[in-house]
């Protein structure tokens, strides 16, 4: 922030302020990394992971299919089949790595961008598209995959996650909860309150922050002047920053945090340092606020590319695997495309459904009046 356009200023303060903001960049901490951008395995003293070739290929497959699904959704939006799409392009490793760390009985609270996590949970991808098409506000049953509805109000879900985790603790279960949120969300009071509650009640929850460097047009410096993972310490639980484009590291770090939660040691904050490769949503125009260079630099760190290099170099996957995956991707794309196009508009009366579980006299009255009003057109009574 510069100081411009106001009266009497002392340059002393303004120069200080600029330097303070610059220092946010200076002390970037070490990321936990197990697979570097060149596709080489690196060792980490604290976190390690030993996966079978099948598991490694599985992670790669998840990322590729997620990206394919995401691309299909983006193009469906361009074709007018969806009103909006929030792409996860670039965040596949963060989502697949953390998503695959979860047990079936763990419960997930996503934002609106966790398509990769949904994939890991076995949520039918077309389910995710209903709200973006405008036929519902989510509408899937969270209990069937322990995957909560997308939450649009920034940060609100972190408290739901904390409460759910408090419930798990009450039940004496060793399940855990993961709450996703973004770098921008870290500024919301609700997120801080979820840190307080989870720490005080020692709730088994992992806060998984995908720092994709941007909150729409605002860079992370507008939300914090120190790395986000450090936020946790002042609430009494550990924070760790992981290379969010490294699926292995995301898996290892999340798994460890979940185990901590299961052990009864309470919350952990994981900051996955990644990048939103695309626009915020299809409504956004990032050329107004960021430079192509930045994107290019992050392209070199692509999560899928590095995993492919690794699989190939290590001979863990052969050409047939990649070809098969290509076909699978296309099939997925086609299936999603067809499912979306076939998705019916909701019945008009649906807007009166599920306002209440136990009913409400006014809703009944309005439903009846609306039905009569609509019927009047059929009868030609009202023009």
């Amino acid at each position, binding site marked *: 922030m510069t100081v411009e356009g106001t009266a009497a200023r002392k340059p002393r303060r303004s120069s200080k302020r600029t330097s303070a903001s610059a220092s946010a960049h200076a002390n970037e901490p070490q990321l936990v990394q197990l697979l570097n951008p060149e596709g080489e395995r690196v060792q980490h003293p604290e976190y390690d992971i030993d996966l079978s070739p099948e598991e490694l290929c599985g992670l790669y497959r998840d990322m590729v299919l997620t990206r394919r699904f995401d691309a299909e959704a983006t193009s469906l939006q361009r074709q007018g089949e969806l009103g909006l799409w929030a792409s996860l392009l670039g965040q596949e490793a963060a989502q697949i790595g953390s998503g695959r760390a979860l047990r079936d009985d763990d419960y997930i609270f996503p934002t609106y961008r966790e398509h990769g996590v949904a994939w890991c949970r076995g949520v039918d991808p077309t389910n995710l598209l209903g709200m973006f098409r405008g036929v519902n506000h989510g509408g899937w*049953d969270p209990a069937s995959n322990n995957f909560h509805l997308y939450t649009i*109000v920034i940060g609100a879900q972190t408290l*739901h996650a*904390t409460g759910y985790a408090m*419930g798990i603790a009450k039940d004496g279960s060793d399940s855990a909860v993961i709450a996703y949120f973004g770098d921008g969300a870290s500024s919301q009071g609700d997120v801080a309150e979820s840190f307080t*509650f989870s720490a005080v009640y020692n709730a088994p929850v992992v806060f998984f922050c995908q720092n994709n460097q941007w909150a729409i047009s605002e860079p992370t410096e507008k939300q914090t002047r120190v790395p986000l993972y450090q936020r946790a310490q002042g609430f009494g639980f550990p924070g760790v920053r992981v290379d969010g484009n490294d699926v292995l590291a995301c898996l290892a770090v999340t798994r460890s945090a979940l185990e901590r939660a299961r052990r009864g040691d309470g919350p952990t904050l994981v900051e996955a340092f990644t990048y939103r490769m695309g626009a915020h949503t299809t409504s956004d125009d990032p050329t107004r606020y960021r430079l192509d260079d930045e994107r290019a630099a992050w392209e070199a760190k692509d999560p899928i590319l590095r995993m492919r290099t690794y699989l190939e170099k290590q001979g863990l996957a052969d050409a047939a695997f990649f070809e098969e995956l290509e076909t699978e991707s296309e099939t997925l794309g086609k299936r999603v495309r067809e499912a979306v196009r076939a998705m019916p508009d909701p019945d008009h009366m649906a807007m009166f*459904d599920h306002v209440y579980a136990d009913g409400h006299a006014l809703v009944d009255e309005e439903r009846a009046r609306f039905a009569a009003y609509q019927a009047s057109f059929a009868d030609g009574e009202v023009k």
Partner: protein
Amino acid sequence: MAVQKLPLAKALNESLRTALETDPKVLVMGEDVGKLGGVFRVTDGLQKDFGEDRVIDTPLAESGIVGTAIGLALRGYRPVVEIQFDGFVFPAYDQIVTQLAKMHARALGTIKLPVVIRIPYGGGIGAVEHHSESPEALFAHVAGLKVVSPSNSSDAYWMLQQAIQSDDPVIFFEPKRRYWDKGEVDTEAIPGELHKARTVREGSDLTLVAYGPMVKLCLEVAAVAAEEGRSVEVVDLRSMSPIDFDAIQASVEKTRRLVVVHEAPVFYGSGAEIAARITERCFYHLEAPVLRVGGYHAPYPPARLEEEYLPSLDRVLDAVDRSLAY
């Protein structure tokens, strides 16, 4: 044993105790609800008997309280949340309006949010700022919430039972200035429906509709009016969302005159909704416009002015006179 004379606050306490005893999923949570028993002692003794895991002292953060209550409900619990005073519900307003109220619809009915939010409300106790407000209209306007308020001990006991049993979020407004008023509670009675109004005094010349703290006042008004030869019917609304318009309509079709009384500011208050809808329903029956008596369009005043600010016997009688003068 089943019938006891209890202050309203104690009736609520007994109701919470019954709920905690009956359903292991019921939780009580809020600021100071534990050892202190809440600032009004509504949760007195509950933590001692049910433990810190079911009667939970929370951090001082209302959004956190309601937000975690939502999470607990998703896990199968039935949290009963206490907001310490009316004026302190607003930090939780976002969680209530954007999450609690809408999540059932967002999930197309696949999940339920049985969360009760208890709010001591209203004035007349000589308190400092933020401790005497009546924000019910700010909740009743929001679809997905139910909003109720008992006026006496029996309703306090039973309506809280029903609110806790409801699968919908209920904002439960407690008339704090009536906490110490005693009334009979029959814990084995069959209660009336939660969202039905109740005629608490029959009359033929004019209908007074009130809820919560104003019901008692309206009964006093009716008594004074009776001395002057005017027969005033008093309807205890009990539920501000939904509103039992059928009951009000039936009364107004008989009396042809309606005055609505509440502590909340009149402007955009519940009296407006009642006036608008009853006028529509009873257009040819009304001999006078529906009149409203309530707070003024001003912040709730310092205690030394609240008597002037709040509906009083004289102010309601004045409205009765004005209505009858049509």
